[in-house]
């Protein structure tokens, strides 16, 4: 019987919704699947369009470009929704629409 990945609750402040996000799913994937119009462009950590503030919780980040999220931004509590997989329940706020 296949194991189901653990799921966490992710609150997206911009739309005031809380959705389920599996541990092997990115925040962006879960948001799009839930019908949320989360801003994104490349969805693979290259452009930074989905840059978000991590208001609460922990994430594991998939590979990305330096230009999309640098160490200073990460230290300041920012993350990329397209690269972030939850490691706890989360609260995030996307920072804008359109590319950077």
């Amino acid at each position, binding site marked *: 019987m296949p194991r189901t990945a653990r799921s966490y609750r992710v609150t997206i402040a911009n739309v005031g919704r809380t959705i389920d996000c599996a541990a092997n799913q990115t925040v962006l*994937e879960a948001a*799009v699947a839930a019908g949320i119009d989360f801003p*994104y*462009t*490349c*969805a*693979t*950590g*290259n*452009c930074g*369009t989905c840059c978000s503030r991590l208001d609460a919780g922990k994430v594991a980040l*998939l*590979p*990305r*470009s*330096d*230009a*999309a*999220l*640098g*160490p200073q931004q990460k230290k300041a509590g920012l993350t990329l929704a397209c690269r972030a997989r939850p490691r706890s329940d989360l609260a995030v706020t996307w920072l804008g629409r*359109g*590319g950077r």
Partner: protein
Amino acid sequence: MTVADKRNRACAKLLADVHAITATEGITPSTLHALKLKLVALAGKAALFPPADFAMPLAEGRNHPLLVEDNDGHGLYLAISLPGKEAAPHDHGIWCVNASVSGRERHRFFRRTDDLSRPGHATVEQVGEVMLAPGTGMAMADHDIHSTEVVGDDPAVSLALYGYALARFPSVAWYHPRFGSVRTSPSRRHAAMA
């Protein structure tokens, strides 16, 4: 002469050769193939691109300008991507040629299959694949679509030559098969050319 001097000279010669080809023949499948062969030959001179001369990515991927021409010319870069780095299918809007210096990077090629009638929606299907490794390269026309993925445990280092410098790129279209969507990044051309 230092390695950097030799590298600069070799890159300048490459761009001169590229201009000599494109100025007389334009950008066609055969000229792109010729450019690819020239870039593969330059990438084969790995001693010109010692890792110590280029900062590794802080996160996972980084482009180092090698010689970017003024006056809206081409852009030549050394791209370093760490294991696992990927890019969804995308269309640069401008031709490009890549050649591997070290490591392995999988390039998959796609074609768009929807009728473009629904803004923001798109479907693509894979039509080819190339594994970029030392001694190999690939070339794409203006609106070809490709995805990339670093394979294995070593960084993928490659030379990338674009029709425009990255700072003057047109809008890039990103396709997302899982979402059935397409999203475009803003063009940098107007701001860069102002």
